[in-house]
């Protein structure tokens, strides 16, 4: 990364796992993870909306948890696993959430969508048949409590996540049933 600014403090070398790949990057200590992603690594899928942690637009997953890139010092993610919207989906196929968002119209301007997807994917990964056998809208809304959307009234976002969550639980149910049938 090039930083043309003569006043910038010396960059620090940081190793992290970015979307599954070991990554080394030199970054000035006062840069946030958001600035590193967007301007240092050209991963512009992660958006900036409010500057200071009020809107959730810059949500990424750090060690699996949804966190705010705009409040995270880039050098503090050393050795951590960072996932951005660019890392969702496998082998060119969209993540089921991306497919559902597109299908039901959960993205209008699309600006909050990457952050929404990161919060929603964490919610999905935490779903467990044992803890909550049915999908509850209020749980989804709670998982999205830090992600503002100005376009949709959240209606279709909740719908998309609900549909995917139901299929995740159904799959867990199938697995549980087939396990139970094993001798």
């Amino acid at each position, binding site marked *: 990364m090039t930083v043309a600014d003569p006043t910038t403090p010396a960059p620090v070398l940081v190793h992290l796992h970015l979307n599954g790949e070991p990554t080394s990057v030199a970054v000035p200590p006062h840069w946030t993870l958001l600035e590193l992603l967007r301007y240092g690594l050209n991963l512009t899928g992660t958006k900036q909306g409010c*500057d200071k942690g009020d809107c959730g637009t810059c949500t990424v997953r750090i060690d699996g948890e949804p966190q705010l890139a705009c*409040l995270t010092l880039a050098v*503090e993610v050393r050795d951590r696993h960072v996932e951005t919207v660019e890392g969702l989906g496998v082998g060119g196929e969209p993540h089921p959430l991306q497919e559902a968002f597109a299908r039901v119209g959960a993205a209008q301007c699309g600006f909050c969508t990457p952050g929404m997807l990161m919060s929603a994917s964490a919610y999905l990964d935490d779903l467990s048949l044992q803890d909550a056998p049915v999908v509850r809208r209020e749980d989804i809304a709670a998982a999205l409590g*830090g992600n503002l959307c100005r376009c949709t009234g959240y209606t279709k976002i909740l719908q998309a996540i609900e549909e995917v969550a139901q299929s995740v639980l159904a799959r867990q149910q199938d697995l549980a049933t087939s396990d139970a049938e094993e001798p």
Partner: protein
Amino acid sequence: MLRLPPFTLHQPTTLAEAVALLAQYAPDVRVISGGTDLVPNLKLAQTKVGHLVSAKFLEKLHGITRTDTHLRIGAATGLHALAQDGDVQDVLPALAYAASRIASPQIRNMGTLGGNISLDTRCRYINQSELWREALGGCLKSHGTECHVVPGGQGCVAALSADTVPSLIAYGAIAEMVSDQGVRRAPVAELFQQDGTWHVRIAREEILVAVEIPIPSPQTRVAYRKWAVRQSIDFPLVSVAVRLDVDGAVLAGGSIVVGALGPRPRVLTLERLAGRPLDEALAQALGQMAWDRARPLPNIPYDAEYRRERMVIEIRRAVRVLVGLPEKPLVTKT
């Protein structure tokens, strides 16, 4: 976008290293943990500091341990982890609840208990950009000499806004700080002073490492209540913890702890109400006590008069829930 000013970041991996760094750079140094309060304050140039010492890699500050008598919670324990912890939910439900109501899921994943205790005070005249504060002409906490909340006021009255503090005080929590001078312990109730510019009695050389909370007896019941406009993201506009120590069917003692007033929480003890039955009249009496002795100021952004009324209502509701009455009074049909 709003930019962070340059600073030097230190990432010690041992407490000894951290303490040495703090001693070396004090007073121009701050501990950074989750960063959810400090980073916005740095971006707004509300806080200015040359050195940051990260608590992220300090093993000793993480984790929750339970003994027969106490719960010990590391200062770098995440707020989400705290809210979800089985032991905390079991013996300190009001603290678990308070942690679950902080800000948003992302911020609870990042923020820590130590960070919440140390959360800077908030005020409509300080949590603003440099341009805004310049336009205002500054205030006691920001390059000025005038308080805009209390005309003629000589001390900064920005509000303690930490959700966990009222219940920590109600539970009798003890904070443990370490510096190069050694270990210091102090009740959380005594950790705050009436100075909004620096309200936490933790020296720049010190690092908060843990809080220890005595496991309450079954006769102790604590509830935390928060009111904010939104169900998520917002700081508390009303923040109260109520502790009732009961003896059979009557009150033996307890406290009301009110946050979101000025820099210091207001603690009202209930000893003089000992012997009162656990009923609606008690709820009313506690509400009245708070009305008389705790007064929200027009410091944080909402109608202070309404916040005062709401504080009373939240206290009444807390009492009702703790004594097994319905939370809301019955509405008579008209």
